[in-house]
């Protein structure tokens, strides 16, 4: 069967908008599987203009979106707020509200739980949520800083009482880098590190790079290359660039 027949006869066929719709249509026998493959492989990045409002709405309707997706969505809505179409501008403003409210609800719930009984796990979760809120408000410096400080407060609490997990330590270092407190970030990882892992060395390199100590950054990159057996493609790319290979 010609895999392209759908495109040639598409006036007679059901035209799915999403890969899931194409898959359901295939299961029901309306469309060939090639349509699902095509739809899955042709997803347009959300932030490409002109924006696909329907697609944005569809994604926004999902409750548990990742931070990265929320950041992209917020960026789009901040742009759409200035749309000449008032309906779209209103939709954008409401959507930003929806995303922030989702975070606020989670934070309120966790704060209530924290009131009823102290839990370091809840504190760490609150710290993470405040950090995510800060990342969502990247364009509004003062709000971002406020959320970063809140996040720092919770992680410091956890650090003082039980010590940080690797993920929590990463977030704490990221908070300090975002606040441009590079020396504090370096102190934290030096105190908290148990061994010189690749993650730790990359963080150290990142801090040195941000401080403008390029020679030391290159030395760390060399150290990573010697010590680490397993590197991701992205990590390898950074090292290759610094070491000129």
């Amino acid at each position: 069967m010609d895999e392209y027949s759908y495109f040639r006869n598409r006036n007679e066929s059901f035209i799915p908008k999403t890969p899931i719709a194409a898959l359901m249509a295939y299961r029901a026998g309306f469309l060939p599987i090639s349509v699902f493959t095509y739809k899955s492989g042709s997803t347009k990045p959300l932030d490409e203009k002109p924006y696909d409002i329907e697609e944005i709405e569809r994604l926004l309707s999902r409750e548990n979106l990742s931070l990265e997706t929320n950041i992209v969505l917020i960026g789009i809505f901040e742009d759409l707020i200035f749309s000449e179409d008032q309906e779209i501008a209103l939709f954008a403003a409401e959507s930003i509200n929806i995303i922030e409210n989702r975070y606020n609800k989670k934070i309120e719930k966790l704060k209530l739980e924290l009131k009823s009984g102290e839990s370091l796990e809840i504190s760490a979760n609150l710290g993470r949520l405040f950090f995510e809120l800060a990342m969502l408000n990247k364009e509004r410096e003062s709000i971002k800083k406020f959320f970063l400080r809140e996040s720092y407060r919770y992680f410091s609490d956890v650090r003082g009482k039980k010590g940080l997990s690797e993920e929590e330590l990463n977030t704490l270092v990221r908070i300090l880098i975002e606040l441009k407190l590079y020396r504090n970030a370096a102190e934290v990882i030096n105190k908290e590190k148990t061994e010189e892992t690749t993650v730790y060395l990359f963080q150290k390199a990142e801090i040195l790079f941000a401080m403008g100590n390029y020679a030391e950054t290159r030395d760390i990159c060399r150290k990573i290359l010697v010590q680490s057996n397993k590197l991701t493609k992205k990590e390898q790319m950074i090292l290759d660039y610094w070491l000129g290979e």
Partner: protein
Amino acid sequence: MITERMKVFRQTTELLFISLVFFLINLLFPEDPGFLKTSINPYLIAVILVSAYYGRIYGYLSLFFSLVFILIPINTQLSISGYIVYVWNLITTRLVIVIIVVYFLGMIHSSFASQIKTQRIYMKKVSLEKYKLQKELGSISAANRELEERVLRQQDSVTALYTQVKAMHSQNLSKTLSVLISTVQKFSWAEKASIWEYERDSKQLVMVANVGWDTDDALNTIESVDSTINGWVFRNDTIFSVRMLLEYENLSAMDTKRNILTFPIKLSSSVWGVLNIESMPFSKYNLYTEKLLAILIDLAGTAIERASEYEAMIEYNEVNPQTNLPSVSQFFSFIENEIIKSADNKNIFSVIIIELPDFNDLVNEHGEKQVYRIILLMLDKLHSLSGNMIDFFHYKEKNQIAIYYPDIDYDGASLFCLESLGFINTYNWTINDNKVLLDVILGYSSMGSDFISADDLLSMAENLLEMQKV
């Protein structure tokens, strides 16, 4: 195992109970022991049913229980041996028939039981497979969702690059540079970046666009080409990367901690200026980002050149103050210039004239300012529709706008006019929330391989307009 034993025990008890029930009923009719005088014997019927339902073994077991109960003497007129002989004589034939029937029914039962067992094993297997598939489907759906989200948030995709490069085409140099710098920010996650143009008169680099700059940064908007890294990049037409500071002392001496990656912006004949990334995340500082930005800047060169040429040509005292569009005289000189260039380079282009027949009525009803606002919105939409390729000018009449469309011939212009009409007729145009019917007519002509004078070119487009008014 325990369940199987319990089942055997339960069924055996059932059979015993059935025979016992018949025996107890039989006690009420002592003149007919074992119901042997009746044509349909309940004991034997029960045996047949049991063998059909439970199988051969239970059938024979039921027959055994029935015989035991039948052989219990309930008629006291005969001696025990006499009673047994009497019963045996009556039952022999029926007993043989029942034994044969039980055998065959048992065989049929076994066959069905075996089929059911096979089906049951199959169903169990299918159900297990279904459960596994459902689990697999659940995890694949979750993975698919995550992948979909990843693709959707893919900001540095080639398609996004293409869209951004298209968006750089503009008549306005500031707009082109603004799109370029926002694209650079998008692809490199730069926290601070700036574009510097070389000013020939002062022989200095002047900052013309930036992103992420704070008030302190704004103090340094002019740089020497001799003693700065930006200047070094400009003079040598070479990319600078901060790791080069470790190799070259001359660069180290010029470093002010304001250059991470710096690219020369080259137009067709010379270096126009530089793009400097002042701050970016460590994770994005790699060869991939460098190459990607180099591609982007190469592609942006054409748009910058075009916008620069356009700005150099347009005299701003001849720009309509309400629309900021150049006047008709500018259009004529622009077209004449393009025709000369076309004769040299064999470039093609088209001219489209848009006319609003109801312009005066709309102005009377809503005022000139509002009508021009809606016209500008329409032009903006047409600009997007063309992939940001077209330039606008005022034409001879107030209700006419001329469009210059490069690299497109008669067929392309015709298709663009059709698409534009389709769009204009379906768009919901409003002035102060009141719906407005925007009626437009379009005329077009193209500069192909043969030379046409500017007058002829524009006359052809005007003739097409006039034909639609008849």
